[in-house]
């Protein structure tokens, strides 16, 4: 019990579309241990992004409970949710998720700035991760000058720089070619192991979910 990172109990989420109610998640229950690396698979519209949003405290479920690392995130207001994410969650999105007004260094440093890390420590951590992911030469570049794969590796670095407990990735390689995708997945694997992250990665690409030890599949909002 002490090692449980994620406890989902009878989780449901509905959306309204005009007069119709769409069931995005239907009574889902599962648990994950700390350090688990899970592929969340399923076709488009199966509820993958909704589940990631709920796990990231970006929205509240209509019923059920989400306990992350012992904290019930259903009970959090917007500010508490933001604070929880700052410290505990890292996000990787499909693409275009870097701030164009910040340099690569600043983009990666952003989560550390939010948790008020000292400048010296920021410098140390960011330089290390830049070197680890072979991004050091782009330190002072702005995102628009990077390739898709390079941007996504920067996004990976940003997602883990503050050592979150939970890494949520939403189709991180969907828009990349095979070579770039491999580099990004290698980076995620490397950092997830190094930082002992619990990771849930939404994907419908077999090359991606076959790399991960655990797989959860969603169909029409139900876990099968």
């Amino acid at each position: 019990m002490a090692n449980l990172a994620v406890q989902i109990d009878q989780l449901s989420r509905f959306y309204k579309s005009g007069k119709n109610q769409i069931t995005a998640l239907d009574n889902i229950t599962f648990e994950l241990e700390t350090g688990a690396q899970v592929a969340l698979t399923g076709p488009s519209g199966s509820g993958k992004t909704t589940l990631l949003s709920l796990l990231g405290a970006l929205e509240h479920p209509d019923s059920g409970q989400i306990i992350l690392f012992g904290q019930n995130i259903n009970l959090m207001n917007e500010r508490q949710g933001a604070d929880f994410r700052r410290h505990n969650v890292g996000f990787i999105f499909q693409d275009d998720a870097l701030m164009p007004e910040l340099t690569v260094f600043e983009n990666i440093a952003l989560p550390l700035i939010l948790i008020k890390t000292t400048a010296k420590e920021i410098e140390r951590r960011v330089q290390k991760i830049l070197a680890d992911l072979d991004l050091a030469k782009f330190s002072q570049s702005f995102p628009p000058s990077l390739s898709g794969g390079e941007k996504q590796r920067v996004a990976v670095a940003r997602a883990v720089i503050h050592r979150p407990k939970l890494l949520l990735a939403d189709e991180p390689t969907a828009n990349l070619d095979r070579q770039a995708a491999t580099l990004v997945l290698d980076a995620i694997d490397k950092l997830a192991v190094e930082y002992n992250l619990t990771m849930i990665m939404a994907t419908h690409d077999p090359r991606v979910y076959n790399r991960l030890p655990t797989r959860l599949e969603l169909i029409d909002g139900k876990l099968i």
Partner: protein
Amino acid sequence: MIFWLRFALRSCLRRRRRTIITLAGIAFGVATLVVLGAIMVGVNDTMVKNAVAIHSGNIVVKGTSLPLPQAFTRIDKLIVELESFVELETILPRLHFPALITSDHDNSPINIVAVDPRREILQTPVGKRIVVGTYLENDEGLLLGEVAAKKLAVKPGDKVTLITSTEVYEIKVSGIFSLAIDAFDRSMAFIALAQARTMLNLAVNYEITLFTRSQSDLAQIAKKLNRKLDSGEEVHLWSEILPEVAQLVKLNEFSMAIMVMLVIIILGFGVANALLISVMDRYRHFAILKAIGVRPHELFLVIMAEAFFMCLVAAILGTILGSAVTFLWADYGLDLSRYTSANPHFSVNSIIYPRLTPTMVFAPQMMALGAGVLAAIWPALVAGRRPITQVMRGL
């Protein structure tokens, strides 16, 4: 905090096209207001200058009624004292008394003013608006307004009788003037002070009419003057003597204030629009920031800071531009004689010289800055309040 300010500044710099267009709009608006404000000040200056130049001066020191010899003694003493005031351009001693002028044809109540013709002709328009005859040549004769002269059916060389409260005098009409201001041409007549000194023997009101150098602080001069005056003597500013002109100036300022407000409101909508579009463009980025853990008030701060930076730079540029245009224009002036030629006698000067005042330089700047920041509140709230998940699904 500093990070978010830097973020906002970078955002302005990176979205160059949006920034330049917004900045240009605000700067142009501020520059326009500065120039229009300077023109308004110039119009007021010209209006006041023309109005006071007719007769009243910028400041009048009014004395009580004294027998003629004491009035002259007091005037002479006052002139000596006032000549030490560097702010004063012209000092015009005057005596005045009411009289009934009669001719063979009719009579007319008139305010007689005894003046120093050599000083007066340099400053007031009466001596330059002689229709027939001469202007108090050799300090002799009576100068009548055209309307009064018509009523009395007199011409230069004719004699008229002045009936005062205590004395009756005969005097020859030396000239007839016309300022094309009916009340003035009907009720004012002039004699020379030198003639008054030898001819009259009655109690008169004395006054010193003062013309100040341009941009002088009249209230300050009045304060200094008050310290030099005897009891019973009073200082009056032009605004007390010509309240209708003062009212016109106020009206002009009020109209300008309304125009400034309208332009500022339009600027505000422009800023709100530009920022809202910019926020909508960046919904995804704001959602990502929120997902990372940025709080809505930090996004609010970013947008507000962007608005502040843009409006500050635009307001400064607009002020510099407006001031430069006004500065260049101030030398040449704006010639309105085509539009004021209906009354050539009245218009002492038809050229408007735009003038910058601290209020008209800084008010548009401050108001544009304030309006811009206020206008940013709504887009800033929108940036912070948009649900993350709505945007996430579009990622």
